[in-house]
């Protein structure tokens, strides 16, 4: 598509439309003309299969020699095509003439609908899609109303075919549009769906092992224009018209995908508002119209019976439930008694408002020891040279480059994986550097790949770089020595984004890596403008918020080394994350936890205060691209839990007498008045939306999924320091990572794990990998361990018994141990370890 506008006549009116644009999209966007479609989807290449979008099409005739328009009876002469044409396969060109509502067109559409319905069961009353079904809508709009096909003539097929653990297929309802197949092939790049048989017997199948099991499978249920694909989670859960859509933000990672929580007042939840499903909400800057299956299926934790439902006070050695009115004065007194020797450790799941109020509480107590509980120390640099304001990863393409270093992006931030994979499809140069194999590296390695449903062959360039275990800083810093050609290509790219992870790095290490990446970007001039800069793979949804609210890893390190008398642990679970935490936490006199669950940390706590999940309250997160986005109250609260900000404010009220604020909006007002980065970010501003291309939500009749419509706001992006002025390179602290006496143990991330939150969703829990440790064959040999052996991995603070995976995928001289796969905590940051063959088999979880 070019920027050149050309003249097109649609239904006798003239428009100037971008040359090369898809006719259906352009007609809708600029001419307010809805051309109905079934198979076409603006996020995928057209295939012209369903024939619903037929139009009459012609060309204004021009004289070959002179280029002049040929006139006939004072009007330009139009050469009409003899047959109806599919609009979805037409690209806008100069002089195009289209008629979308002539009797011939209407008859064509009517017959396509009639054909589709001949083998459709019309079981709308029991169909999950009923009420938001493009087929239903378009039948109302364009159909005949009566069927001439005898019901007994219809085909009867299987209505409950599991395509994997998460998605079910109703073969009768499928209209063979291939949207799901094309999504998996083109968008995800994992073609695990296909048609089987042919003609009327054409059906969707998967024969992959294990089934239809990608991290994005749920999106197919949104784009399916009928109720053929449903999720195991929501099937028969509710009717769309009973649902209220509440805008929210995916709380699991730094992408900040915009989601919509479909809720209704539900008997299963004491008549309170309850989330029935999670759907994507369109935000072209953030997640377009996709979400990961984690965002979609891991909402059950919000209603888990295991949730902490009332404040707890330790009395006589045991934790006992109490009420807030009793707990608040007690906790306030404990805080005051510290006489300023107080610190806060907050996790990246806490909202900006939570962090602000906690900070005010600490300040009131005379403390500024605010620790960020995270595994990545790059947030401060991301504030300087993070991706430029206005960045849209969807705009990266030919001539641009992306470097992903020290991250397994598909597992850590699936949405970024998806968008970067597509940037590569559009022609961007992708370099993936890590000490082990990842899915993204696989894609970068393929020099040429074909998108099978499209005719066009896509030359895909990329590089898969391997460095020694934990060697990211060294590689990045000396990229010119290690990979001069790659360095050159990155430097010369029109736009460059460096995605910086922290795998294999200590906090000092990730700070150093981020600095090295920042220096490269600054020196090559790839900062301070859209589609350029640093993208930090911070864990959790609000890693950047921690930074802007003043929570640092330096403070965390000091808290661990020199614990305070009283420590507030807010929305983080040190004892679940860190096997050595018991040791340093034992030095804290009074531990106060503010968490969703009575996790292990509670064992050391004097007080445990129940807080609310993202679904039960209002708030904002700042994503990895520094976009501040609102989420709204969707679900009734669990027990007596309070929003974290609210609990903190009430504690402060007890201590200082200042009135607690009454709403999250009021907190944000205060933030916007006090934190320069948040200048102007009031709730009203954050809730603003504008029309987005492509137009898929709202009154849309055919792209499906009413929830797409963004009513909650597109959010506002904090400018980086580079956006506002110049930034200077900094010194890289190449603090050597000492592995001590043992082997280097490198924690890795899995999207689905046994963390407290993920564990609560049955559909996902069944798909978590069995615990394992990854070893290079050479390393395994040294350890006298074979693939499949049970091994005991010992580290400071504990040990676990897991299965050894021996493979070239891993760098030698290290052990790669995924976090949260075992019942016992494993290290969150690299450390040294010992590995021995275990005598006993791995205990099943």
């Amino acid at each position, binding site marked *: 598509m070019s920027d050149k506008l050309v003249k097109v006549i649609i239904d006798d009116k003239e428009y100037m439309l971008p040359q090369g644009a898809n006719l259906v999209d352009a007609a809708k966007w600029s001419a307010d003309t809805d051309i109905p479609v079934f198979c076409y989807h603006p996020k995928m290449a057209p295939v*012209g299969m369903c024939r619903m979008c037929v139009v009459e099409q012609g060309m204004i005739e021009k004289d070959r020699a002179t280029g002049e328009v040929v006139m006939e009876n004072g009007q330009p002469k139009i050469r009409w095509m003899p047959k*109806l044409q599919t609009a979805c396969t037409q690209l806008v060109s100069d002089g195009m003439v289209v008629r979308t509502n002539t009797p011939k067109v209407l008859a064509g559409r009517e*017959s396509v609908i*009639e*054909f589709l319905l001949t*083998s459709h069961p019309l079981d709308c009353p029991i169909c999950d899609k009923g009420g938001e079904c493009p087929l239903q809508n378009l039948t109302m709009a364009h159909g005949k109303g009566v069927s001439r096909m005898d019901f007994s003539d219809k085909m009867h097929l299987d209505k409950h075919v599991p395509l994997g653990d998460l998605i079910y297929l109703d073969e009768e309802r499928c209209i063979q549009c291939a949207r799901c197949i094309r999504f998996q092939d083109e968008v995800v790049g994992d073609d695990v769906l296909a048609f089987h*048989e042919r*003609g009327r*017997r054409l059906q969707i199948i998967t024969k992959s092992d294990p089934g239809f099991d990608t991290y994005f499978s749920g999106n197919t249920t949104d784009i399916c224009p009928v109720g053929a694909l449903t999720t195991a989670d929501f099937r028969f859960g509710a009717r769309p018209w009973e649902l209220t859509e509440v805008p929210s933000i995916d709380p699991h990672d730094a992408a900040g995908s915009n989601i919509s929580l479909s809720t209704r007042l539900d008997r299963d939840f004491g008549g309170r508002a309850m989330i029935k499903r999670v759907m994507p909400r369109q935000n072209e800057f953030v997640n377009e119209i996709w979400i990961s299956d984690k965002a979609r299926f891991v909402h059950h934790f919000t209603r888990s019976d295991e949730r902490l439902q009332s404040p707890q006070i330790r009395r006589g050695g045991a934790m006992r439930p109490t009420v807030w009115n009793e707990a608040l004065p007690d906790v306030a007194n404990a805080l005051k008694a510290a006489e300023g020797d107080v610190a806060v450790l907050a996790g990246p799941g806490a909202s900006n408002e939570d962090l602000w109020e906690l900070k005010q509480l600490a300040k009131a107590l005379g403390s500024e020891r605010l620790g960020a509980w995270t595994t990545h120390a790059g947030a401060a640099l991301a504030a300087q040279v993070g991706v430029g304001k206005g960045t849209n990863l969807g705009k990266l393409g030919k001539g641009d480059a992306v470097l992903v270093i020290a991250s397994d992006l598909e597992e850590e931030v699936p949405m970024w994986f998806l968008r970067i994979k597509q940037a590569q499809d559009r022609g961007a140069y992708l370099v993936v550097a890590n000490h082990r194999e990842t899915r993204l590296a696989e894609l970068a390695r393929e020099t040429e790949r074909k998108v099978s449903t499209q*005719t066009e062959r896509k030359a895909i360039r990329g590089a898969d770089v391997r460095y020694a275990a934990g060697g990211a800083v060294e590689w990045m810093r000396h990229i010119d020595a290690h990979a001069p050609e790659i360095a050159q290509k990155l430097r010369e790219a029109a736009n460059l984004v460096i995605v910086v992870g922290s795998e294999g790095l200590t906090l000092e290490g990730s700070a150093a890596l981020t600095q090295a990446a920042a220096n490269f970007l600054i020196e090559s001039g790839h900062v301070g403008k859209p589609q350029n800069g640093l993208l930090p793979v911070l864990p959790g949804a609000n890693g950047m918020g921690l930074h802007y609210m003043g929570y640092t890893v330096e403070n965390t390190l000091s808290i661990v080394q020199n614990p305070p008398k009283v420590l507030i642990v807010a929305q983080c679970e040190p004892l679940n994350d860190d096997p050595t935490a018991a040791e340093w936490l034992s030095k804290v006199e009074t531990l106060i936890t503010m968490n969703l669950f009575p996790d292990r940390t509670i064992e050391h706590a004097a007080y445990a205060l129940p807080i609310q999940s993202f679904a039960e309250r209002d708030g904002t997160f700042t994503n990895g691209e520094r976009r501040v986005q609102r989420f709204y109250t969707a679900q009734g609260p669990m027990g007596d839990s309070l929003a974290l900000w609210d609990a903190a404010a009430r504690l402060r009220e007890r201590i200082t007498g200042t009135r607690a604020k009454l709403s999250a909006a009021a907190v944000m007002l205060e933030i916007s008045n006090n934190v320069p980065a948040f200048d102007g970010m009031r709730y009203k501003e954050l809730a603003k939306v504008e029309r987005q291309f492509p137009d898929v939500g709202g009154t849309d009749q055919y792209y499906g999924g009413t929830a797409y419509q963004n009513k909650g706001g597109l959010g506002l992006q904090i400018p980086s320091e580079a956006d506002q002025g110049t930034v200077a390179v900094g010194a890289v602290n190449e603090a050597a990572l000492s592995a001590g006496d043992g082997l280097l143990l490198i924690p890795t991330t899995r999207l689905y794990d046994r963390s407290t939150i993920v564990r609560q969703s049955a559909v996902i829990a069944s798909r978590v990998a069995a615990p394992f440790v990854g070893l290079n064959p050479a390393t395994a040999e040294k350890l006298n361990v074979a693939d499949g052996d049970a091994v005991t991995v010992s580290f400071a603070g504990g040990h676990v018994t897991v299965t050894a995976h021996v493979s070239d995928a891993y760098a030698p001289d290290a052990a790669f141990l995924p976090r949260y796969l075992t019942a016992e905590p494993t290290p969150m940051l690299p450390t040294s370890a010992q590995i021995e063959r275990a005598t006993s088999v791995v205990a099943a979880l």
Partner: protein
Amino acid sequence: MTETKRILLRYRDVNADFTDIEEYGAHDGWVGLKKALSMTPAQVIDEVKASGLRGRGGAGFPTGVKWSFIPVNEPVKYLVLNADESETGTFKDRLIMEKNPYQFLEGCLIAAYAIGAKTAYIYLRGEYLEVANLLDACIEEMRKRNLVGKDILGSGYDIEIYTHLGAGAYICGEETALLNSLEGKLGQPRVRPPFPANKGGGLYSEPTVVNNVETIANVPWILQHGGAAYKAIGTEQSAGTKLYCVSGHVKRPGVYELPFSATFGDLLNEICGGPLDEAHPFKALLPSGGSGPIVHLNDEVMNTPMSYEHTAKLGTIIGSASLIVMDDRTDITWVASKVTKFFKHESCGKCTPCREGTYWLDKVLDRIMAGEGTEKDVVLIENVAKNMAGITLCALGEFAANPIIHTIKHFPEDFKKHVSGKKAVSKPLPMAGD
């Protein structure tokens, strides 16, 4: 009347075994190729243009013009030979490949040279396994004589020819479905543009010419004798000779080569010996397999030349010239049902009207054949067929609509018989699994 001026079935005239490369060489073999290699590719294309040769795969598109669409400057181009031949009543390409394989392969070399392709694929329907084996053996013989491979005949031109077997899908005769199939994908047609000749539209997205076997088998003769000599045969708009496949109710079914100027009467009465059973005169003719419009086999038809332009005047097409002849014992409703079963079975399923329409038509026709249909059903299928025509992705949908529309138009009484309450006798079998 007898066959005269044979080009493709020359071996019948000289009574020689053309599957022997020596014998083929002794009978003007490779003369056209050598001539072509001494010319520029553009000159070869001009010669073929001058011959008036039109595609024998059905659509009759001028072959030289098609070749000239290939962009000269693209580095990679392909030639693909369509030997999918799956239309009911069609068996001519098989005969060429079985009896005169070297002439066909020589044509391939000339065509590839003309468009600058260094690789040619012959896509054969899967059932032609033995034919493919024969062609493979022939290609090896040619390799021994430097007719295939690097620098053929010292010309500096490199060419490889490979066979590829389909596996039972009529739709793979449609050129874009064929290309998909050759790429290892489902044999479903592609949307056009881009066309196969364009960058992005052909095999592996490279510019590609797809030609029928018979089309290409004419090319050596054209090069040897000149385009003008070829143009002189046949009729004004239909140059040369054509292979006519005759099946059904005639005494001598088979493949016959005649100039386009020959009439249906010449072929059916004189060469094929007239009706199978003298007591049962001809009733109807499908001149182009199951897909072309049916006609009454009357004197007007008998006196008409079997050319593109003359058959068009009859409201039908000559297409691939697969004449299915039916005598007065034939129930045309049964024919409609039989043909519909074929298209239902062969619909690739990609586009809605054909996928659903063929299924629906078949269902209603079954009812009609079972004597349970009504007059409304006849109106219904005619209407359904008309709704399919003109709105499908490829021509198969059109092909499937034709038999219904034209049988009802020309033989309404045959349908009336079935819907007037009397039980019918014949009923086509369903396919296994249907």
